[in-house]
């Protein structure tokens, strides 16, 4: 149905473009030099006013149709059927009616449900057809109104450019809308979570056991939401990653900027960048397939017990991934140090190494720090490596050979599979997401600020 609507609209729009263009030729009797705007603009003007309002109408209709029909459906249900139902049970009933309406009948639905399903299907049909009619009416209305305006002096180009401006501004606003969407959706769900679990428990509790019983008789942990062990696990793994990435990245940047000849540099730099382009799920599998077993057997030979999903394996592999972040930011920072400083140092008789250690690195430090902070934010927000290679159980430990869990692991495991938006388990994921978003955003803002300040200093 939807496809038919869009195809029809597309056809009408294309036809109205042709009609507008022909009309423009017609009003000046085939002499387009007498028009203010070229005929294509007349066509585009008509097409824009035919296609865009009708499409917006369809989109708005689709967004509103579901909730309105649902409200009608609930109103139409017999009184005794919905009396005393909790909102959750009402949702279940509505879902049952919908699935019966879609033809998936399980068991024997009672008569009221069957009737409601029939009504639901009827309304669904009415809505579809009226949407179709309204959209085409809107398109034809647009055609009638704009086609009449075409004349030799009509400034169609200005009209088209105005429409283009509005579209471009709307597209630019998507960035703000996305941020807003993230903040609002995280905040709303997180606040619902804090309604049920006090925020003091979340931020200061030491016990994280989110698997709460679904049925009365199920034996599980009680459902504790103290996120401190999750946070410390995240910091432990990110810390290990930085311990791997910072020295490797920094030393390779120093070598590439100061020692390597341009040919070597042109080959090595893209190879390092490959490390950042490999999908993280590949790193996760690499950690499980190669790194963790290797560490485990190494631990066995020296008589140490390393967990198969130890923080060390996940952190080390994550470190490999963020090497290019550190190295390319350090590279930029070292390159940005003015040549005069370098030459001054050589002039005093310093060796290359001494120049790097005493002049370049101190001068480039802010830029390097910015790069490290960005790498840290990347490490904290990294998901797939830890989902595959780190543990699930929150443990408050600083021992890298044990398994720990992270914020992102918890978000994914809490939300994978069927999700209902009304239990603290799934809402907890949004609270964790909010913390993650705020922390990474803070790190990014600080890092970008540092990098920018530093650039200004030397420009």
């Amino acid at each position, binding site marked *: 149905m939807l496809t038919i609507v869009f195809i029809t609209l597309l056809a009408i729009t294309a036809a109205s473009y042709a009609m507008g263009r022909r009309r423009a030729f017609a009003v000046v009797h085939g002499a387009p030099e007498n028009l203010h705007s070229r005929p294509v603009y007349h066509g585009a003007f008509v097409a824009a006013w035919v296609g865009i309002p009708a499409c917006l109408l369809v989109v708005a209709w689709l967004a509103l149709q579901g909730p309105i029909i649902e409200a009608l459906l609930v109103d139409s249900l017999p009184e005794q059927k919905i009396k005393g139902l909790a909102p959750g049970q009402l949702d279940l009933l509505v879902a049952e009616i919908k699935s019966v309406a879609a033809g998936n009948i399980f068991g024997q639905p009672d008569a009221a449900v069957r009737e409601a399903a029939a009504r639901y299907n009827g309304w669904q049909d009415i809505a579809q057809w009226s949407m179709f009619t309204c959209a085409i009416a809107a398109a034809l209305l647009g055609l009638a109104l704009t086609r009449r305006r075409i004349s030799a002096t009509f400034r169609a*180009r200005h009209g088209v*450019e105005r429409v283009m401006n509005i579209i*471009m501004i709307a*597209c*630019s606003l*998507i*960035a*703000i809308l*996305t*941020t807003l969407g*993230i903040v609002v*959706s*995280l905040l709303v769900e997180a606040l619902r979570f804090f309604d049920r679990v006090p925020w003091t428990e979340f931020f200061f509790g030491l016990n994280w056991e989110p698997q709460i019983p679904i049925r009365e008789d199920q034996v599980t942990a009680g459902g504790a939401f103290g996120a401190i062990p999750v946070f410390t696990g995240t910091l432990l793994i990110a810390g290990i990653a930085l311990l791997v990435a910072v020295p*490797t990245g920094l*030393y*390779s940047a*120093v*070598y*590439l900027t*100061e*020692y390597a000849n341009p040919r070597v540099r042109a080959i090595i730099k893209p190879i390092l960048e490959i*490390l950042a*382009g490999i*999908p*993280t*799920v*590949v*790193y*996760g*599998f690499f950690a499980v*397939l*190669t790194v963790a077993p290797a560490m485990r057997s190494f631990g066995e030979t020296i008589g140490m017990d390393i967990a198969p999903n130890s923080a060390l394996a996940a952190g080390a592999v994550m470190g*490999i991934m963020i*090497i290019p972040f550190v190295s390319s930011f350090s590279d930029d920072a070292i390159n940005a140090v003015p040549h005069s400083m370098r030459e001054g140092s050589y002039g*005093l008789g*310093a060796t*290359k*190494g*001494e120049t790097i*250690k005493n002049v370049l690195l101190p001068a480039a430090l802010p830029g390097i720090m910015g790069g490290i902070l*960005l790498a840290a*934010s*990347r490490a904290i*927000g*990294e*998901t797939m490596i830890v*989902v*595959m290679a780190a543990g699930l159980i929150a443990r408050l430990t600083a021992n890298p050979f044990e398994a720990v869990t992270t914020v*992102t692991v918890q*978000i*994914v495991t809490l*939300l*994978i599979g069927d999700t209902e938006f009304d239990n603290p388990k799934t809402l907890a994921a*949004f609270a964790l*997401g909010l913390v*993650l*978003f705020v922390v*990474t*955003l803070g790190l*990014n803002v600080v890092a970008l600020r540092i990098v920018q300040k530093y650039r200004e200093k030397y420009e």
Partner: protein
Amino acid sequence: MSDIASTKDTAQYWGSDAHKRMVARRHAADKRLQFYGMAAIGLAILLLGILVASLVRTGYVSFIQTKVNLEIPLESSRIDATKPQAANYRVIVRNAFRALFPEVKGNRNLRNIDKILSSEARFIVRDYVVANPDMIGKMVTLDLPLSDPFDQLHKGVIPSQVEALTKREIGLFRGLVSRNVVSIQDGRTVVQIDAFVDPKKVLPDNLAFGDYGSIVKEGFRSYFLRRGADTSDSLLAPDAGDALKAYVEANPDAIGKTVQVKVPLASDYDAIFKGEVPMATNPRFASAEQVAAFNSLEIRGLISTPFNWELFVNSDSRFPEQAGLAGAIVGSFYTLLVCFLISFPMGIAAAIYLEEFAPTNRLTDLIEVNINNLAAVPSVVFGLLGLAVFLGFFGLPRSAPLVGGMVLSLMTLPTIIIATRAALKAVPPSIREAALGVGASKHQVILHHVLPFAMPGILTGTIIGLAQALGETAPLLLIGMNAFITSAPGGVLEPATALPTQIFSWADSPERGFVSRTSAAILVLLGFLVAMNAIAIFLRQRFELKW
């Protein structure tokens, strides 16, 4: 260098031994730093090499598939020509396969034989018959896939035999050897124990039926007092008691006394002591006979390993030998298509506005800050957004490529906007001025003259953004694109998986065969990424104009 100034007689200091040593030290420090740099780069490249090598090493075997050449009689008594899909192909295939092993008898052995063939083989035969109904009543020869363990065995991924003893068991035995109580007697490895011949267990008037076994075990346990009692029993041969029996029968007065006897060890330990490595059938296989049956197939030349087209033609399956990537590739294609259709026009429109039209004010500043920050938001947060807004609020279907593409387009948008702005900036002002000079409006200048020149740069950025989106996993997991779906999606609203989520679910599967399938899927994904990046580089080098 401050120590130069503190030297009293500078002239004498130059060229002195102390000075030479200092210079040498400084140069050594310089060389050291250079070495560290090279070591760091070497380490990074080595790690990249290990990553690729381990994937290739485990993954390449999945590009071939072990198959058996099987003659199947399509008896018309078993297949109804009017309803060929309804016949019992399980029995048809089973009987045809069992016919290769006429010597195997017994239900258990026959069932083990059945397990050599993939349990999906019957569907292949069914599809063949449905496609070729005129073959009913004839004998057909088909290449059918083997089940996962035998596929792995034939490719040499898993051995047919494994070491029978664990390291711990060998360690126990070595401890025993170091006490100098193990020796060889009459060709068998024996251990010397102190056994108390308990009169309650061995009655003097009935020496033949004493409980010698438990006496021997008890005596042997004294070597392993610190461990649990049952750990030591498996080291002894089943007939260990007989050695004691023979001794007691020869010396009946030993009853009630502690005697020194040498009892034989189990055959595996016997082998170790003689310097061999004891082997046992790999527990992945049901029995040694099953492996022997498979080997006979190999000897008869019925086994072949053609290229594994199924990897690209089949969709997901519970059985690794039949699992393929078709569904995931189609799902990824739809997802990227939606992502491209949304982010490409929107990204260009936003970039043109910000670069060419936007006045410098608070709003545009806010937009720019937002774009830069969105590029650094963790991907899982976009998944949360998709879950809460697209699925929760707008009620779009779970696992649909449409939703996946919408979420990914939000992540790709900053990349495209940044690339487009850079490309627009690179078009020289002379182009704009010339167009303006002949009377074009600002929109015409950009659409007709600037944008075409910027297009290669924009396309390069877009392809790189889409390549990133292709590898993105976490947001797709949250909107349910890791579901188990056995057919390729027919549209953007049908449930689907994508390549990276397929990799994730295969990596989580316990079957051994999925390890190499996962590596193969990763190689396919990396292949797509390399191809996309190569196209981007080609576009940049071929079409980008240098001014």
